[in-house]
């Protein structure tokens, strides 16, 4: 019988996706440890559980497509190609950080990767996505702007202004909603009159679909199709990825609003071991190799922590730099 996964992507890409998911998980769990030790301070929103979305979606984008996101964006930056060392250094507030230590966990940015920022005002990235998409259209670059956001952002005015604008001006924006069911501690049906978020684009005549956000190849397929549609039509599209975060909203949130049984149920659907199991079952990789990959990524993360620890703090004079050109 033909492999289902192989029908989607070549072995090399499938394994790359798996490796990236493991790297994101190891990175986030290491962040939690560094937060507990006091090396990372401020807000820290971890991505554990949602890896299939960032990895599947990013894999389906072109290298020069724009990506904007919110404040739970370490994984998106790393999958996009950001050096884990410089991301960790940013979280430590060190001069070697990806934004010189001035942004922190919520504000990663790298224009060379077309990673156009993590924004910490809920819904703040929607107008920026329109701006980037307009720029691409104006300069006839054919770049799609992938705009990631959570279920909590869809009740902000910015979401609706952005959808209307993108459709009205035919802007190439691919909206990717990561519906993890909770805006901090408020469950989606307690905040949204219509909790099926993909249905909310009908008022703007924007096509949309729902995808299993715990299944990286499925996310890849959906985003690949949607991104091509956006590029071809120069018009927006929305994907709602159903996912779950294994930790609280941030490190300050013990997540008591969710039952242990609910969390356990979702952990059974953990996107990493389930993907690994399929890779083994379909004969794409041996179990031993997956274990090796985990050890290798642990070494990468350990090196990132070492780099962050040993990096210098920013000079005091840096406080006045970068306000104006």
């Amino acid at each position, binding site marked *: 019988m033909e492999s289902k996964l192989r029908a989607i992507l070549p072995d090399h890409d499938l394994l790359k996706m798996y490796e990236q998911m493991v790297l994101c998980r190891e990175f986030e769990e290491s962040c939690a440890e560094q937060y507990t030790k006091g090396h990372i301070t401020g807000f820290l929103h971890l991505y554990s559980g949602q890896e299939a979305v960032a990895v599947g979606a990013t894999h389906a984008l072109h290298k020069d497509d724009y990506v904007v996101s919110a404040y739970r964006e370490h994984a998106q930056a790393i999958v996009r190609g950001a050096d884990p060392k410089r991301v960790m250094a940013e979280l430590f507030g060190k001069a070697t950080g990806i934004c010189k230590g001035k942004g922190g966990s919520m504000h990663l940015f790298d224009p060379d990767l077309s990673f156009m920022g993590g924004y910490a005002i809920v819904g*703040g990235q929607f*107008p*920026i996505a329109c701006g980037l998409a307009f720029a691409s259209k104006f300069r006839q670059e054919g770049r799609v702007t992938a705009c990631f956001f959570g279920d909590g952002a869809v009740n902000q*005015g910015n979401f609706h*202004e*952005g959808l209307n*604008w993108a459709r009205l001006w035919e802007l190439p924006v691919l909206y990717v909603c990561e519906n993890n069911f909770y805006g901090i501690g408020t469950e989606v049906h307690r905040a949204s009159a219509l909790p099926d978020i993909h249905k909310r684009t009908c008022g703007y005549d924007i096509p949309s679909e729902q995808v299993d956000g715990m299944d990286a190849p499925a996310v890849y397929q959906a985003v690949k199709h949607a991104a091509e549609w956006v590029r071809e039509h120069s018009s927006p599209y929305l994907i709602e990825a159903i996912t779950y975060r294994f930790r609280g909203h941030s490190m300050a949130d013990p997540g008591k609003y969710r039952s242990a049984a609910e969390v356990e149920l979702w952990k059974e659907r953990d996107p990493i071991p389930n993907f690994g199991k399929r890779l083994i079952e379909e004969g794409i990789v041996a179990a031993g190799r997956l274990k090796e990959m985990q050890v290798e990524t642990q070494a990468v993360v350990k090196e990132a922590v070492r780099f962050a620890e040993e990096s210098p703090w920013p000079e005091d004079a840096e406080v006045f730099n970068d306000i104006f050109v």
Partner: protein
Amino acid sequence: MPEMTYRDALNLALKEEMRRDPSVVMWGEDVALYEGSFKVTRGLLAEFGEMRVKDTPISENTIVVRPIAELMTVNFALLAMDQIVNHMTKIRYMFGGQVNLPMVIRAPGGGGSQLAAQHSQSLETFFMHAPGMYVAVPATPADAKGLLKTAIRDNNPVMFLEHELLYNSKGEVPADPEFTLPLGKCDVKREGKDVTIVAYSRMTVLSLMAAAELEKEGISCEVVDLRTLSPLDTETFTASAKKCGRAVVVEECWHTCGLGAEIASRIYENCFDSLHAPVQRVSGLDVPMPYSRKLEKLCIPQVEDIVKAVKETLAAKY
């Protein structure tokens, strides 16, 4: 030099800069087909086409994304404060200087047209308070043109605050398409020796009228026009205050925490030993703007208020 209105000077600045740089685009509510609520964008759509001159939905949060955005009035900037303050002024800094925001937000504002509480505000202090954007407040047609051209060429975000009552005011404007004025420099609009009047935008125009009246009584006023509130050219207005030893600050905004408090504070910090009297402030009243013409006049500084303040500062002694 040709004479033209403040409105036409702004219009010419937009056209010249759009001709000069094809990446400049003009967006706003009713700026294209309707040619702007105050007709500042007249003729732009016809000359530059629909890709560069675009009407936007009434979505102030989202207008603020590209080079020149017109907010129909500054009052609606409050809807866009998230994009202006949380995003525009911070993106360069929090991303470690990896990106520039070469954008201008034009916004007409100010009171005096009986537009009532929600359409008559002077919010300049709000923008001046947040680091990360420049704030221009031109008083004359030439300043409007020269500052707008610089704002468009600058690689930093600029809030460009136009006064609705100045659109029809006339003045000489240099014809040179390369005429620009620097951001961050005051302009001494009138030299004098007895009292320094620090003002901006329409308050500069009223201050010059007050100075002309006071001259008839033998009082010599120096009128310093701030021209930009950020960067603030402290050196020029404090030098003037030091010279005269007396200063009056005129602000259209509300008195409490108004920009006049900042100006006065800087004068005290720099000129304490030179002052013969406390700095006087002429401010908007701390009330929402009433509609009635009779009441509205009480809320906005008038020429006679400035004259009175100058006389009081001359009478006062430490």
